[in-house]
């Protein structure tokens, strides 16, 4: 377990302070906050790379606040991957092992094993500059994982990737976390990323922790306007995926079964953007595969658009235009049908 107690760090312009966090062993923990909130500095303070003003950092019951970084067994992967440009991929991955003076054969074996796991075996002879962003990312992960750290810090690891690679790397990270079982602290400014990966999320704002909790908790019970701003625009559900009819997936989210497009089985989460939901008075028969009856439970006006919460249960937050809203004559307690395409849902 990692415990951060009352940490205070000088960011130049402002202070990161009153940071109290407990992160369980093997947890995938997300630190979520806007750019410039001091997320990277917080990571570096945990790793011992940035001086702290006050407070303590504990790992598995030993205090490491005064320990130098090379003795903490904490790995870090920066946003730009920071591969050593003067070494080959193999040299990068073996860096930590060579420092520890492992026998040559053992280094070779370990490097090959980890390269296999992250899928960079074919790149070992290359120089980092010749790799794509996704490949560099994987090499950076291999380089740190081969040293078997107790904690892995990821600094916006996906933000420099194009959308497609990003999605693939999300799966890679999830898979790695499952296989290696290392504790991960992952910093991001992207709520969707936080929800897709994090078991728990800490929201950081203005140098302070605004809220800590499971993604759904952050979403359903935001503790402040700031957190709500990050969370409001998303429908997120936890459910159980199984084979549906016709080979497509079916996700049970407690009461209703959603038709979705996914290869995943078992416990999954899915998200749905409010603007992708159509509200009608009658059920629709269409290419949209999901159509359910529910009760309007909340209405929030936002200028030209209206957020309508429809309870089936669970709650679905829908975004419609004011014109549609008026035409449908919606008010709380009214029964409506909601419709959305299977492809509009993101399952993870």
């Amino acid at each position, binding site marked *: 377990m990692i415990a951060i107690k009352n940490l205070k760090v000088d960011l130049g312009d402002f202070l990161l302070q009153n940071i109290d966090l407990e992160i369980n062993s093997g947890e995938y923990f997300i630190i979520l906050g806007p750019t410039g909130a001091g997320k990277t500095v917080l990571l570096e303070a945990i790793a011992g790379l940035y001086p702290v003003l006050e407070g303590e950092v504990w790992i598995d019951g030993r205090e490491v606040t005064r320990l130098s970084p090379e003795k903490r067994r904490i*790995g870090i992967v*920066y946003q730009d991957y920071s591969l*050593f440009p003067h070494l080959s991929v193999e040299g990068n991955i073996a860096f*930590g092992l060579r420092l520890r003076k492992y026998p040559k054969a053992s280094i070779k074996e370990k490097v090959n094993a980890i390269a296999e796991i992250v899928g960079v075996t074919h790149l070992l002879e290359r120089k980092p500059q010749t790799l794509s962003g996704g490949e560099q990312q994987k090499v950076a992960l291999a380089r*740190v994982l081969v040293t078997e750290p107790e904690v892995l810090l990821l600094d916006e690891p996906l933000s420099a990737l194009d959308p497609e690679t990003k999605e693939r790397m999300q799966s890679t990270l999830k898979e790695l976390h499952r296989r290696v079982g290392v504790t991960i602290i992952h910093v991001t400014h992207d709520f969707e990323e936080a929800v897709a990966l994090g078991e728990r999320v800490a929201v950081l704002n203005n140098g302070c922790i605004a809220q800590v909790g499971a993604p759904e908790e952050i979403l359903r019970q935001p503790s402040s306007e700031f957190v709500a701003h990050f969370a409001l625009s998303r429908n997120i559900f936890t459910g159980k995926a199984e084979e549906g009819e016709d080979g497509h997936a079916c996700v049970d989210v407690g009461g209703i079964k959603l038709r979705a497009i996914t290869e995943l089985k078992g416990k999954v989460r899915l998200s749905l953007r409010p603007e992708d939901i159509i509200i009608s008075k009658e059920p629709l028969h269409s290419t949209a595969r999901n159509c359910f009856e529910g009760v309007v439970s909340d209405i929030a006006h936002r200028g030209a658009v209206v957020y309508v919460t429809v309870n089936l249960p669970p709650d679905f937050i829908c975004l419609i235009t004011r014109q549609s809203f008026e035409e449908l004559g919606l008010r709380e307690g009214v029964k409506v049908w909601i419709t959305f395409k299977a492809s509009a849902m993101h399952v993870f």
Partner: protein
Amino acid sequence: MTKTHVWRKPDGMSIIFVLLGVIILLFIFAPLLKTVVSSSPGVLWNTLLDEEVYSSILLTIYAAMIATLVGLFLGVPLAYLLARRQFWGKRFLEGLIDIPIVIPHSAAGVALLFVFGSNFLAGEVFHTIGISFFNSVAGVVIAMIFVSIPFLIDSAKEGFKTVDVRLEKVARTLGASPWRSFFRVSLPLAWRSIFSGSVMMWARGASEFGAVLILAYYVPFFGHYARVAPILVADRFASFGLEYAQPVTAIVILISLIVFISLRTIAYRGEKA
């Protein structure tokens, strides 16, 4: 296919700027070239065989090399600190490091003598361990270090600045001590700047005249007495006039150019322009 740009009259400014540039280049190189080509290769060769000349050149090369090695040992750590640490008065300190370049060299020689002369503090300390700086190779080295170390420090500092500090941080988390991180990451990545700074330091040291003149005019060197090349040139000119000083001047210029240009070429080899 040869590329032929659509012809446009070159603008007046370009013409004038090129002319002014040519003037300055001529001003720098015409004297050097004229001096070098004014003697026949035979005369140059005979001059080189003159014992006074070749021992002078060997002394110069040797002392400048020692100075550069000392500079690497003392200056590179300072350059690293200046590139990595922020502290109050850093800008001022960086300015101070350039001061040896702008202090009159003869004054620098006098000042050095005031500390390293055998009846002064540092001089006495070294004297007890058998090192004397007045009219000795050690004195030549000290004078060379003083006037040339800013070139190495500045260049190494710029080199370290181009090394992303995150690479060092990553090395630390991978288990490297500060020393290991320095020698395995920072130094290999900055070596080009450090090497080219060393070349400048060596060449600048070898060219020093004023400070060496004051501190170590005539020194014992491998069983003979010798003067550094710049002093030899000045002495020959003062004693025998321009004509007689010409061959040795040509030799000294040639050797400076050859060593400087070849080392610079090594430093930049393989670098994209």
